[in-house]
């Protein structure tokens, strides 16, 4: 079978140690979390890091908890932890719906939230979820911590703002009382990457959408989202026509590319369909119409 090239291995016992190991071993160093993106890339030798810093021992980064009006999700939380989280289930159904269609249960046992975000695969699902929810991502370095809005986190495919000597430690999601959320994904087969996927949340006041978030994956959307469509809906009543108009905006503003998952016209069409479905279900949940 395919095997990785040689590398130097270090294990970090704390975030501080991970950072100092990154500093010590230089730019050819990669953090190893779940490893389910990195190790396959190393096996086909698309990636050959000089050093791996194993952060699987950082139990301090494996948590999901309510902190004031935010939910904090540690970067080393496994996908399974997100899927099974009671806190997330209470506030945002979008998480479990997305997690259920991420890879397969075995991969979900190892893969982590931070790893998924930092791998920055353009078809990755959690990026769309966090983008829909406008989460903040907390990045740590020797000089302290900084918070980055998720929509500024990804610089492009496989590229993020996390610097060479930095580590993503946490995602913070604002709690929006009464918000409804949903995730929609079309895949060729269970466990495949998305052909297209969308996530959405809706928060209502007096029947109007005080806040709306739309996340998009696998379709080349700027920042995994569509701010114009959100703006179209904010403060409005989410009638079927309004939702359809927003979905059409998403369709027109994304930049999908053709591959074996589908041609461009189909992916645009899917965006329209899935945004409509995700918003509609999120709305029903916000209204308490759907269990």
């Amino acid at each position: 079978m395919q095997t990785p090239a040689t590398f130097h291995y270090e294990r970090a016992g704390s975030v501080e140690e991970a950072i100092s190991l990154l500093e010590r071993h230089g730019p050819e160093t990669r953090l190893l979390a779940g490893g389910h993106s990195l190790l396959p890339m190393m096996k086909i030798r698309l990636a050959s890091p000089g050093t791996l810093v194993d952060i699987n021992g950082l139990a301090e980064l494996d948590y999901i908890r309510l902190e004031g009006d935010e939910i904090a999700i540690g970067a080393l939380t496994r996908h399974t932890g997100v899927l099974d989280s009671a806190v997330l289930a209470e506030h945002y159904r979008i998480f479990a719906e997305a997690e259920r269609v991420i890879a397969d249960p075995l991969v979900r046992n190892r893969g982590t939230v931070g790893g998924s975000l930092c791998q920055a695969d353009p078809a990755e699902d959690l990026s769309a979820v966090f983008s829909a929810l406008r989460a903040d991502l907390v990045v740590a370095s020797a000089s302290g911590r900084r918070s980055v809005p998720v929509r500024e986190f990804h610089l492009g495919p496989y590229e993020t703002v996390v610097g060479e000597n930095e580590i993503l430690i946490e995602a913070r999601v604002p709690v929006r009382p009464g918000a409804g959320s949903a995730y929609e994904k079309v895949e060729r087969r269970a466990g495949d990457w998305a052909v297209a996927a969308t996530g959405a949340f809706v928060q209502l006041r007096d029947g109007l959408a005080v806040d709306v978030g739309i996340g998009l994956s696998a379709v080349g959307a700027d920042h995994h989202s569509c701010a114009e469509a959100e703006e179209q809906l904010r403060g409005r009543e989410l009638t079927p026509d309004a939702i359809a108009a927003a979905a059409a905006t998403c369709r027109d503003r994304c930049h999908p590319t053709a591959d074996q998952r589908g041609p461009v016209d189909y992916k645009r069409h899917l965006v329209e369909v899935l945004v409509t479905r995700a918003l509609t279900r999120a709305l029903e949940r916000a209204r308490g119409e759907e269990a």
Partner: protein
Amino acid sequence: MTATEVPVPTSPAGNPIGFGRMLRKEDARFLRGQGHYIDDVQLPGMLHAAILRSSYAHARITGIDTSAAEAHPKVKAVITGATLEGLNLAWMPTLSGDVQSVLATDKVRFQGQEVAFVIAEDEYSARDALELIEVDYEPLPAVVDARKALEPDAPVIRDDLEGRTDNRIYDWEAGDKAACDEVFAGAEVVVAEDMLYPRVHPAPMETCGSVAHMDKVTGKLTVWTTTQAPHAHRTLYAIVAGLPEHKIQIISPDIGGGFGNKVGIYPGYVCAVVGSIVTGAPVKWIEDRSENLMSTSFARDYHMHGEIASTREGKILGLRVDVLADHGAFNGVAQPTKYPAGFFHIFTGSYDYPAAHCHVRAVYTNKAPGGVAYACSFRITEAVYLVERMVNCLADELGMDPAELRMKNLLRPEQFPYTTPTGWEYDSGNYPAALEEAMRIAGYEELRREQAERRADPAGKPLMGIGISFFTEGVGAGPRKHMDILGLGMADGCELRVHPTGKAQLRLSVQTQGQGHETTFAQIVSHELGIPPEDIEVIHGDTDNTPFGLGTYGSRSTPVSGAAAAVAAQRVREKARIIAATALECSPDDLEWELGRWQVKGDPEQGKTIPEIAFASHGNLELPEGVEGHLDASVVYNPPNLTYPFGAYICVVDVDPETGEVKVRRFIAVDDCGPRINPMIVEGQIHGGLADGIGMALMEAIAFDPEGNNLGGSFMDYLLPTSLECPSYELGMTVTPSPHHPIGAKGVGESATVGSPPAVVNAVLDALEIRQADMPFTPAVVWRAMQGRPLRTDLAIE
């Protein structure tokens, strides 16, 4: 018709003595992780190999520098085409009379072609060294679209062959063209369609591999290898390498699935042999998954144009087909010599009409070689797909229910044995009964009613489709006068030895890849001799310890080797009769057989059991003149004809019209493979084939981009169905024995793989209410078909 299972007595271990449900003997080791597969083979001093493969689909090699790889401290040898040329092994014969490059010398002709072979102390180092080899390529334009392979300006791929000016491999036809054309000219209705059976891959869970050990002292070559046909491999090694056949031992250990992927000899096997000769040590080479998908036997890749003629009332009059067959860069298909297109000319299917003609043109392209694999019964898969799709197209044209149209045209029971317009003699069948049974289980009328309601009120509901296919398989190749591979007749040997205490060993030429031979074949002998199946050990997969035969593929184990085992046991039983008569001091004619025992007619107290007779045969009983001692038999079974299992399948799907997603709701499969030796195993074979069909219809395909890059080179891209795409299958059966097989059995290993794809495709197209679109029905393909702008599924999506 329902199963008529005659109750059989049970053995002390609780197994049926003879046919019936019996738990598998092989499970005990597999369940404990004690199976012994190719990568489990460990030999002292064994070295590990890896192959450098071409990244180009078509390129001239202008230089190979292996010096850095050779300098790697753990590398023992690097073999290139130049090394092999010195041994006259740079090219090897294929199973179709072509030659194939073992390691490229002049050009590479597909992406993934073998270029260099590195042997190192461990697998990791061998792979490290691949990165140290520098190959200079001069890229050439690639032939990617098979439909353009014969254009006058197409690059000539096989310029290694003397006098080659184009990419044509062969033109072949079957049937009476003139008579067929006449029928079409006068027909009231003619429907024509183009359809592609895409390139797919058997993709067994275990990849292919080999461990070669040349013992320089004894001169003996031992090769452990994932082969479905160990004896054929031995002879081919003798021919290819010029090695003495009596000094070659092929051992096929437990095989993690074959499906036709493990029939041929691949360059890596030959290199492992050469590597062992060069290094003096055993050399192990195991494919990784990408190598498996990109270089070893793919299947299908048939571009078919079909035309079907009928009366307005739906009486089918004829079928004609034009096929463009993409064989890749080397003609490496494995099939009987006489039939370059395999058994494709069985395409007339299960219906009664006089006129048929097919024309097959095969071409070279810059893709991996192969074509016959993946449980295809020598291309009956393609044939059944063609006819079952054409019948549905005709039903659509006539506005007739596809079940009714089939029922109207199915061969009737009294027509058997039936000779088809292209010369096949179907042995037995009751086709309408099988279709009726499938429709009964499905609740066909109710399904159509539900569909009509759904169509009348489509709001927010998925589209519902019902697909039918009816297949006739031809398995058990074959009569040796008609069927050989590279001159080796397709007959199989079998040796049965009953030991003095009445326990037996059965030695087979065929090799299981999961079909349960260790159990089923013991049951065949048990059925004939009345001894418990647990007392019969099946030995296979080792050429030094089994008789010659052509191996397991084309669903031939039960029809050929199973017949051999039955005949061997029958011979032992007849010899036992003589020995029993001698012991009982009577005439053999005075004895009658009662399960496991010869007894005196009219005096059943007087008798001898098989264990008693076995002991006597090895003892001091004086045997009649001409009767040798011991109780064994050796048989070579040359089947008089193929056996023709058949079945009726119904698939129900739901399609999301907005996204194009297809969900298989139900799958009903009624199979008739004659008497079922072990119904549990037969049903397992069918289950697996149905998943194959769902996979091919919905997701499995290997496409190529304009440069010839393989777009299905890993399990991320070549999608196998998971537990979530497969429904819980609903099986039924009818039982029509084969009149010429000793126990009436017909073979079933490939039935469901052959029969199920058209059922799924017909169901999806029925849901969409369109006549034709090509597999695999991924959501994108379905949606584009609905838009009337279908995608080419053999090329990159643009």
